[in-house]
């Protein structure tokens, strides 16, 4: 295991300390908790947004704490959802009186832990709403199972619901906007290599020298198929086919595009992917309104990437364009 760490047991805490030291203008760490909140929290009268999940997805989630996005991010152990007591503290620290929206990715653990925290905070009289992001089309959606996973599309939820809250939206309005994003966002990813959870010390799965996994989850959950390495254009075609058919995204639609690196895949390769993304969408007459490329929702040092499409209407466009100022997402 080649990692720049001191001790596998302290990675989350040391990471948060390093982050707090780097960005005092944006965030501070809640003393004794693995929670990062806006420096100026609680913002009186503003609906507060709390997100979080396992660590190892940096810059998600604490990288999006700041003006126009989140008020708090709760960091669980690597790839493990945070516990209710931590989430509860985050809620209490950022509630500015207008209520708190919890942004949860659709994993059994995340949902249960956030729900328990919500029950605790509601017991204290905090107004709480929850949304569950489930953008990963690699997993079949069904009422009778856990449903689709939440992956990089979550960042669009942070951005747009965050803008709505910043603009003075009520808790219900912010929740409705978040749900609009969730209803219109779809993603799918792939991996060329596994990654290693520090505490485990060995890769979380294995892939042959010439193999890749299509539809991988951001914790290394198995995907839809294992195949020999494809060319960048073929990968993009495959992912976009699944994604566009799902919603579906159709000729005349306007979308935001995110190409999200999972960790070890260089920006160069992400741009090569986007070249094909823009080509294919042009062929399909789907208009690209704005493109985001980089690392937003990673899996430690996994090599691979995901593509996200978000179908936009006028409201979503305005909120997407609103200024944001956070460690990992800034827009003038």
């Amino acid at each position, binding site marked *: 295991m080649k990692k720049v760490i001191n001790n596998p047991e302290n990675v989350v805490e040391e990471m948060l300390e390093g982050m707090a030291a780097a960005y005092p203008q944006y965030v501070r760490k809640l003393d004794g908790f693995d929670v990062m909140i806006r420096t100026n929290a609680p913002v009186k009268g503003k609906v507060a947004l709390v997100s979080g999940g*396992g660590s190892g997805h940096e810059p998600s989630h604490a990288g999006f704490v700041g003006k126009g996005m989140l008020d708090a991010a709760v960091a*669980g*152990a690597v*790839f*493990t*959802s*945070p*516990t*209710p*007591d*931590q989430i509860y503290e985050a809620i209490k620290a950022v509630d500015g009186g207008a209520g708190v929206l919890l942004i949860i990715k659709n*994993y*059994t*653990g995340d949902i*249960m*832990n956030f*729900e*328990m925290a919500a029950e605790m905070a509601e017991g204290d009289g905090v107004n709480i709403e929850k949304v569950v992001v489930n953008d990963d089309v690699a*997993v*079949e959606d069904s009422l*009778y*199972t*856990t449903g689709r*996973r939440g992956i990089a599309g979550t960042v669009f939820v942070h951005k747009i619901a965050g803008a709505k809250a910043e603009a003075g939206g009520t808790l219900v309005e912010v929740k409705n906007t978040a749900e609009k994003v969730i209803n219109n966002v779809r993603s799918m990813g792939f991996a060329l290599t596994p990654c290693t*959870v520090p*505490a*485990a010390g060995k890769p*979380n*799965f294995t892939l042959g020298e010439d193999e890749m996994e299509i539809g991988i*989850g951001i*914790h*290394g*959950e*198995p995907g839809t198929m294992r195949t020999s390495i494809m060319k960048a254009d073929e990968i993009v075609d495959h992912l976009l086919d699944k994604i566009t058919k799902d919603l579906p995204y159709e000729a005349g639609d306007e979308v935001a595009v995110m190409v999200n690196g999972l960790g070890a895949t260089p920006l160069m390769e992400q741009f090569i992917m986007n070249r094909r993304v823009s080509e294919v969408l042009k062929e399909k007459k789907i208009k690209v309104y704005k493109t985001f490329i980089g690392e937003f929702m990673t899996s430690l040092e996994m090599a691979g990437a995901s593509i996200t499409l978000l179908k936009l209407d006028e409201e979503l466009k305005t909120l997407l364009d609103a200024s944001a100022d956070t460690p990992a997402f800034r827009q003038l």
Partner: protein
Amino acid sequence: MAVDSAQLIKIINHMAQYIEENKDFLTELDAAIGDADHGINMAKGFKAVSEKISSMEDKDCGTILKTVGMTLVSTVGGASGPLYGTAFMRASQATGTKDKITFEDLPTILDAALEGIKMRGKAQKGEKTIIDSLEPAVKVLKSSSPADLNLLKKAVDAAKDGVEYTKGIIAKKGRASYLGERSIGHQDPGATSCYIMLKAIYDALENMQK
């Protein structure tokens, strides 16, 4: 036979020991159909539990169980943290402020735990979860009376069969559900850890009777 607070702590420590011993095994089971952390997280949680309850011999049984539940909730994380945490907290409610737990209490307490898990996880039998080993055990315990060590042994056996049963079914809840058909053939980590915990209760009680 009745178990006082000191003995309850011993039983829970026995659980902690079994979980620690099976840490790698549980993690490997989770690696096959989940995210390879079940053993790690459970061991972390029970280590914290052991520390927390070590000085609670003067507390009533309900308080001890509540502490176990809250500690698991705040240290395990993932799916199993809230599930087992809720189970112990419900067990605590069913126990109340009693100083001793008797065999007669056991079906009620474990049933409360089971109901807690069902409420929290919205799962039912046959979905490849903790429930597949816990529910059969509770059923056995509730099936005849008086409850005794022998009946508990049968309950543990039923849990073991439940673990075996998970190998043949598709996961419909939790992380393994993403695998669909491919989850068949693998034993569920949560059902396994639950069986291990029940076995720990039985072994601890058996030891105490000697």
